[in-house]
């Protein structure tokens, strides 16, 4: 971490970093740790100071009072879900492998995460069929409701958002997420305002489809 922590304590940061790295592992391309996804999440959980980047990328917008109140409520829930979820990872790790989560081997960490994923996938009896169906549909679409999602869904969605969203939010450092998948994102948000960002080079250029070899 190259940035002073804002909200998460050291233990939470190490645990999250380990878990996020399993969600988006480094291989020939950088992974979650390289991209700074924990910084992204630490900022997000720290309050209303990092919700919407200024459109020119020079910092973050101040929220209006109505928005700020709603975001504080939303973030309060996220904090509680993360705190409980990270404790649960350690509890499962200690009881099964005798160490806290961040000290397990990657394969062991994957096993713990799979257990949590499966526990969340089983709808509780209290859930109506309709809402279970809707939740299943959302999971299918890889989209999710941030205001109701449980821990592992949040962890996965936030890791992906951090890895792949604009670097101004603290993840996708040096645009490593975009480079990994071949997305020519803008050099900065300011570039998109100054009309220096275009994808016209990626339009069809009249080349014959049949002889093209990508």
């Amino acid at each position, binding site marked *: 971490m190259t940035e002073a922590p804002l909200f998460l304590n050291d233990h939470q940061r190490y645990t999250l970093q380990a878990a996020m790295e399993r*969600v*988006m592992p480094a291989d020939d391309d950088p992974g979650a740790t390289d991209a700074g996804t924990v910084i992204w999440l630490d900022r997000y959980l720290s309050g209303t100071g990092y919700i919407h980047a200024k459109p020119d990328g020079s910092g973050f917008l101040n929220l209006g009072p109505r928005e700020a109140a709603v975001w504080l409520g939303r973030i309060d829930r996220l904090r509680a879900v993360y705190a409980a979820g990270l404790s649960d990872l350690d509890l499962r790790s200690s009881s099964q492998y005798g160490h806290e989560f961040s000290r397990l081997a990657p394969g062991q960490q994957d096993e713990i995460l799979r257990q949590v994923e499966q526990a969340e996938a089983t709808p509780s009896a209290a859930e109506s069929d309709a809402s279970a169906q809707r939740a299943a549909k959302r999971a299918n679409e890889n*989209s999710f409701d*941030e205001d109701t999602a449980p821990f592992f869904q949040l962890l996965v969605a936030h890791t*992906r958002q951090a890895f792949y969203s604009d670097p101004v939010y603290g993840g996708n450092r040096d645009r490593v997420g*975009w480079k990994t998948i071949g997305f020519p994102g803008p050099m900065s948000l300011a570039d998109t305002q100054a009309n220096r960002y275009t994808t016209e080079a990626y339009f069809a250029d009249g080349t014959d489809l049949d002889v*093209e070899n990508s």
Partner: protein
Amino acid sequence: MSAPKPDSTGFCIIGGGASGATAAKLLTEAGHRIVLLERGPWRAFSDFSSDELANINRHYLTPDPKISPRTVRHTSEEEAERGEFAPTPYLVGGGTTHWAGWVPRMLASDFRQRSLHGEIGGASLVDWPISYDELEPYYSQVEWALGVSGAAGANKFESHRSRPYPLPPLPSTRYSRRFTRGCDGLGWNSFPMPTAQLSAPYRGRPATVQSAFVNFIGDPSGTRSGVLATFIPDALATGRLDLRPNSYVRELAVDARGRIRAAVYEDADGHLVEQEADTFILACNAIESARLLLMSASPRFPDGLANDNGLVGRYLTAHEYTEALGVFDDELLYPWAGGGFITSATYQFYQTDYARGFIGGGLIAAGSAGIGLPANWTLPGHPRWGAAAKNFDREYFNRGMSAGIVLNDLPQEANRVDLDPTVKDAWGLPVARVTHQAHPNDIAQANFLVDRCADILEAAGASKVWRNYISELTGNSRHQHGTLRMGDDPSSSVVDRWCQAHSVPGLVVVDGSTFPTPGGVNPTLTIMANAWRVIDHLLSASA
């Protein structure tokens, strides 16, 4: 709290989106001083950027459901749950701040569904009180005012048009080319999607910048042809538009004679303000316009303004977007190029063929697979996490595309907007409750069209194809119509052929809520053309 009462005005428009801005342009250019009340902020282009996270995931553009919720249920027997049905931005510019700019026309048959098909069980199918030919000149007006890029005559199913498009089509994307190849292989007509973006400089505006961040993302360049870049500046240039953002109308207050006395709105400081006018022009989109009338109950109209016959809010139609998805091993498609929706389309399955077992049909067009941007893209079978997910991202991010549909759904009396009895928004006002159950015709049509989408992708050489069949309507197209039905008979409609409320003098509706049937295409062009027609009439009647 209340603020000093502003001067009365001739025309007060409520809602600053596609239809409200059309009305504002025409009225001000005709010499009228007007007031436009918009509940949301008035953003400059410099308030937007290519920020996927803020726009798509953090409610920067569309309403935060914790501030402006809606509730949804299938039938009146169910308890409605909080949900997002057809959310559109609350901003000056409205839905045209989040659109890709598809502006295809409806067909002549869309205005005559009852005459063509008779009674359809479970549906309330009616003709429009106007014909395509009455609307046609206004389609051309809007196309030329916005500077639509397209190829007249390329859509062989299109009804008569009096003028070509003002600009040639936008350059082709790879996913569009792939779609065209699929249609060609099947012997089906396809055409470049007419789009409210500039393929060349037009009337002092530069050609549109082809960003990847377009659909559901505000435009920092100001080069897309939403009303924020076109009709709002046109109206402001007259010096006669008093545009008041952050002005949330909560009631149209009625006097003892049943005339609207004032629009009562809460301004940015929380003050209640009463704006009087001779004529009120409602332009909040179908769900919110119905909601505002229902919130405006009075002794004369105990069930809501203009609601003597109980039809305000009924006959909600919402299209539905669904698709077939394909991946292509032999080409990088760059499905985010131009935002993912610079594309080709076909009307091959728009017209009714009774042999299919359902009536109607709709547009099919190519696009990215959902939000085709890094943080939100996905395809069926996408592993959720770990090395498998990352490999999938690398393998398919640039290789997936959709062929998607606009469902031409049937109006039904039970499908409606009313006021939720318990859920309130952040201002303490009752929210819109959507009750919607699909008609069997909707499902049959949608899933037939999905199969045709799959045919196109397969004919285009997809290495794998998925079909997203539907079983309900979710409001995911954001399109909304029908809640203030237009018709000649006051007992079966809310507004007349000039979109003047039957029972309330001085109340005109210009948004899509007046559509008796929704057609099978994106509605904004038709909404704007109809608004133009209605205001043209209002001006000639008052001249």
